[in-house]
């Protein structure tokens, strides 16, 4: 990883608007946790809340917002040339970008969602939430980092992917669900609390391996793409 590139991209990630959105969604997560604590079936409602809001919305959209912008913004404003035109490996640029995204997204999401899990009062949910959120963030960040480099309107395409594939198509059958990232971290939550959720029936091993593999695949594609792409 190239530290200079990491620092530059990290600074672009920390805009006041993004931090405001992060703070707002964090507040919503904690609020929903309080609400689920008061439910009759606390375990089920809490698990559903963490999965549906934390994994499906919070993690996916924040990773999209920051991941797609990490290199995508540099491509869009034609400043990638100032990183690319140097004797540094393309993989180190990709790794630095991924690290910058995870530096912002992972701690905030994992801490906020873990706090939310604590607030629900369901002890079994706490560690599972931390792990599931971290894995979801890693997978989504890798995918959206690559998306930002590959497509011009990556934010729009990413929104379409989340809404159409992750949230709708994944419900059409088991094979669709297997190709949905969210089904894996949801399975970790389901295993921890024994709450049955739609899509959340992946094996324990797959639940850990697949998100890591997806994130790495996104990173490798980004590296490959950086060596192949023409810089404007």
């Amino acid at each position, binding site marked *: 990883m190239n530290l200079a590139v990491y620092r530059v991209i990290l600074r*672009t990630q920390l805009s006041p608007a993004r931090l405001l959105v992060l703070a707002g969604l964090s507040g919503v997560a904690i609020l929903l946790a309080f609400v689920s604590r008061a439910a009759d079936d606390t375990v089920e409602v809490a698990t559903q809340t963490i999965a549906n809001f934390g994994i499906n919305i919070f993690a996916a959209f924040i990773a999209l917002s920051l991941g797609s912008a990490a290199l995508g913004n540099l491509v869009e404003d034609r400043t990638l040339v*100032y990183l690319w035109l*140097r*004797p540094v490996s393309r993989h180190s640029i990709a790794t630095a970008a991924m690290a910058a995204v995870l530096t912002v997204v992972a701690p905030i999401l994992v801490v906020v969602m873990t706090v939310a899990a604590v607030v629900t009062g369901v002890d079994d949910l706490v560690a599972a939430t931390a792990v599931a959120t971290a894995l979801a963030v890693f997978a989504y960040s890798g995918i959206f980092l690559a998306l930002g480099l590959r497509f011009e309107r990556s934010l729009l395409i990413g929104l379409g992917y989340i809404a159409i594939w992750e949230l709708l198509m994944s419900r059409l059958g088991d094979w669709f669900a297997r190709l949905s990232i969210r089904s894996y971290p949801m399975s970790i939550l389901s295993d921890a609390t024994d709450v049955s959720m739609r899509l959340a029936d992946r094996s324990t091993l797959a639940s850990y391996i697949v998100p890591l593999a997806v994130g790495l695949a996104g990173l490798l594609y980004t590296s490959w793409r950086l060596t192949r792409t023409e810089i404007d």
Partner: protein
Amino acid sequence: MSTQAGPPPMVQAVGASKWFGDLVAVSDASFSIGAGVTALLGPNGAGKSTMLRMMCGLARPSNGSVTVLGKDPRSDVSVLGRIGMAPQQESLLDHLSGQEFVELAAQLHHLQRPVEAARQAIHTVELDPDDTRRLSTYSKGMRQRIKLAQAIVHDPLVIALDEPLTGLDPRQRREMIELFHRLGSEGKCVIVSSHVLDEVERFGSRVLVMAQGRLAAEGDFREIRNLMDDRPLRISIRTDQPRELAIALLDRGVISGCRLENTDLVVVDTTDPAAFRRAVAPVARDRDLSLLELRPLDDDLESVFRYLVAQ
């Protein structure tokens, strides 16, 4: 196109072409460039930027090859350490200060003392390294100069500058041209693109002329200038007696054809613009005619380049 004798070329293109779908940006360009200042001259859209991008490895030739210091800048990342480039676009990493921006380049080039190297480069382009303002606040001229600073901070052997004088005032232009010459005299290969003929004249350098994606001419600027001056020219003349003036000019042999456009307007063709310019005023004076307006109809840069391509 010729290959320079003597030391091996620092930049060499052999049959280099680049196309984007149906659009041919560069077509079969072959040339060699050594140390010193070389101007890449051509109108907008001629393929200059694409050529520079291929030299720096930012774009891959669709056909042929472009090498820098004998290596392919596209596949050999190490050669990028010997190249400095200031791209045409104004956009910069706007959240950084000038010093941070140039320091980033120094760090990525693995310089031992990036802070000092950045300060030196910023001094060279006459900006203030202690200016903590973000680049987003920089004027166009300052942006051009900071781009140049990041291109030279690592003391590269090959420096590609895409329209670097745009936005600079006359004094800054003069100083930048002096800097280019200084770098060239230090044995560096400085390639400067421009679409402004007079600007390139001031480089007083070797010139590659590009037009419609093709290398239209190559050589010393004076040779190119002469070639341009010798081309046929069509001139519109507004006068009170256009027929008499046209006949007189035909008699003097300085025009090859004419066409009366109006009661006070005649369009003439000349193959010797210099002789025409010398003759037209005396002819009008001798015949007591009033010359109201002389306007070249095809003296724009595009037509100059079209002529060179046809040659």
